[in-house]
């Protein structure tokens, strides 16, 4: 088991290097630092001196990959690639445009992001699985038909509508909770209820429909027929045998998104003014803060790869037939 995990971790390294090279190419080769400087300083009135100053301040004045002016090891280390891209592997993300340390900022903002994302994830999973279970239990009835119709309709509504409509109805008309903002400690719950609720509702449509098909695939399997042939009542067959077996693909399927919860949700956080990583990313995109976007791309892919590894491990844990090859 341990050897398997180690091997999976080693396999992740070339992928991370690939991600790093890709973002490096995207941020520094497609556009030279000169272009970025011009963008930040305004395209029209910009002097070569101002561009040079901007580049020196941020360390973008060095050569991209090989510094022929330096000696020894520093031909490689005193370059943009090493200082801006490679250092991300050790958690050094540099500074944002406002001069703050990106790594520190990320550590601070992770909390609020998780406070929204974790309850949304768990509640959403519970509600969707329950709804899908009911649909599958009453399969081929009017309840099932209209339930699926409802799911398809819910899937077709833009996520923006749930947020804007929810804020309008619950916060503005009914005045139940504050429209946006965030508080410290336990006081935060007032601000969390609405985004979590909206997150759960907007996710039900697609996930409940997906889980329903998983349940229905399970219904026709041999072990179900055996259980019925033994004379078990339908409820026992369904809620004991089918539910447990169908949970395997559902749960292993969602494992991959668990690490990504740290990233927060771009839309929810920006609409509700939550100081998490999602709104940090959106602000950085709007302010064209390349250092922050670059860091978030890197962290996002690290988390995704962790998710993949966790998925593989969870498969082997729940299904003993899968060996650690």
């Amino acid at each position, binding site marked *: 088991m341990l050897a398997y995990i180690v091997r999976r971790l080693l396999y992740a390294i070339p*992928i991370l290097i690939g991600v790093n090279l890709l973002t490096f190419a*995207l941020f520094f080769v*497609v556009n030279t630092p000169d*272009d970025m400087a011009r963008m930040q300083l305004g395209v029209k009135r910009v002097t070569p001196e101002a561009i040079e100053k901007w580049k020196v301040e941020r360390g973008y004045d060095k050569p991209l990959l090989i510094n022929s002016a330096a000696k020894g090891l520093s031909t490689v280390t005193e370059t943009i690639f090493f200082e801006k891209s490679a250092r991300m592997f050790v958690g050094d993300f540099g500074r944002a445009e406002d001069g703050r340390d990106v790594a520190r900022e990320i550590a601070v903002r992770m909390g609020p992001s998780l406070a929204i994302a974790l309850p949304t994830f768990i509640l959403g999973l519970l509600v969707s699985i329950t709804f899908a279970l009911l649909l599958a239990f009453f399969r081929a009835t009017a309840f099932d038909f209209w339930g699926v119709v409802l799911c398809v309709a819910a899937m077709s*509504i833009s996520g923006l509508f749930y947020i804007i409509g929810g804020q309008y109805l619950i916060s*503005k008309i009914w005045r139940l909770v504050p429209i946006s903002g965030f508080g410290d400690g336990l006081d935060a719950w007032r601000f969390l209820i609405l985004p979590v609720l909206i997150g759960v509702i907007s996710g039900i449509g697609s996930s409940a429909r997906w889980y329903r098909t998983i349940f229905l695939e399970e219904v026709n399997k041999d072990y179900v027929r055996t259980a019925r042939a033994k004379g078990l009542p339908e409820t026992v067959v369904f809620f004991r045998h089918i539910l447990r077996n169908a949970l395997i693909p559902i749960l292993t399927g969602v494992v991959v998104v668990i690490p990504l919860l740290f990233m927060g949700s771009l839309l929810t956080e920006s609409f509700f003014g939550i100081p998490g990583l999602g709104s940090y*990313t959106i602000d950085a995109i709007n302010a064209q803060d390349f250092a922050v976007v670059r860091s*978030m*791309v890197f962290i996002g892919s690290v988390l995704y790869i962790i998710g993949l590894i966790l998925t593989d491990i969870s498969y082997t844990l729940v299904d003993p037939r899968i060996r650690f090859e």
Partner: protein
Amino acid sequence: MMGFEIVILWSDVLIWLLVLAGIGVGVLIAKNPPLLAAWRRVGANRVGMASATILLAFIVIGLLDSMHYRLQLEGKPGQKASYAIEVLSVLDAIAMPLRTRNEKTYSAPFATRLYAKETMDVPGQGTIRDYPRLKHGGKHLGENEGDAAADAGFAAFKAMVLALLGWLGIYGVIAAVNRKKGRKIFFGERTFAWDAVLVTLLLILLIAVPLFTLSSQYHVFGTDKVGQDVLYQILKSVRTGLIIGLVTTLVMLPMAVLLGIIAGYFRGWVDDLIQYIYTVLNSIPGVLLIAAAVLMMQVVIDTHPQWFSTAAERADLRLLALCFILGITSWTGLCRLLRGETLKLRELEYIQAAQAFGVSNGRIIVRHILPNLMHIVIIALVMDFSGLVLAEAVLSYVGIGVDPSMTSFGTMINNARMELGREPVVWWSLAAAFSAMFILVLAANLFADAVRDAFDPRVA
């Protein structure tokens, strides 16, 4: 007679190429019995055909909006002709009153007065504060403003009667053609769901014809902050949504199909390499990769203003770039699916028989593997469409979508995001944008379901 110059935008080229490709694929399908049978099953599906009719209506709007021209400016005779900066489309010409009759600011649907009070000088009464009359909405009523509801209702009724007559004409033609073949349209067994098509068409006509006639006298969906008609914006948004949904899949398709089949067929290091590429691309969260790429593209566009002669061309290029970026980030799923399926197919007896006969690899792939993957490709294409239309709205909201000067559902929602906070509430822009998007996406989702059921009977 004013002259004009035809403008061909890159997205127009692609969208018409798509139409041609659609016709070509249709011809190929007609020659391929299994695919034809599957499409016949789609044709017999009532929900599928009803949603297809709605999609077709959207496509017609989009195609009308994809023929562009620039009007000639009036100049002295003998001078070299010069053309207006503004690029217009055939849709703009049809909806001319919608485009040109702008108000000062917000006005509610069917309103005859502006949304906000203004200070006005009225001769004889001095300065008063009141809601000013609209310049265009309900202008024909003159003094009888109170009759707006009755007038609009009567006009709508007349238009609906007209729509019904037109529909009866279409129905008559289709019924006559079917009767020749001895088929009934309503009731009884059908091989093609004409009933669903006709009922949907009736609904579309009953809504669209009154909207069209009323829109020349009123602002049926109101006006936005700068006084532009919301209905016009909705019509213009359709093309953007269609391009995002269709061109993106066109971009990703060759890459996904080629790499997926090659990886599954040749295995070994080729497979490792392709798997590595898509794992790397996949491991970057989609929104962030798109954000990074769009930011970079923005830098390129901003530093090369000399590439574009009109603002429309710049917005168009940005739209296409967005399609490419979305395509590059979304091909991995289909590629993985095709790789898995090819791995299964290449072990089957008929492929091994072909290999034993010495048929070349390229020929095996084209003749024996590709046709057996078509159902996966078609299902993926129609399933992706709705997701892409929804994604456009979100991306435009985040600020990494289409050019802000280009009308789309996303930019409409983005511009209207603060309107629900106003007092009184300005709801019509958001409501119109969300409902138009809902209808488009719902139709696409239902059609996708019908296609999936017809091509892949395994899934319940």
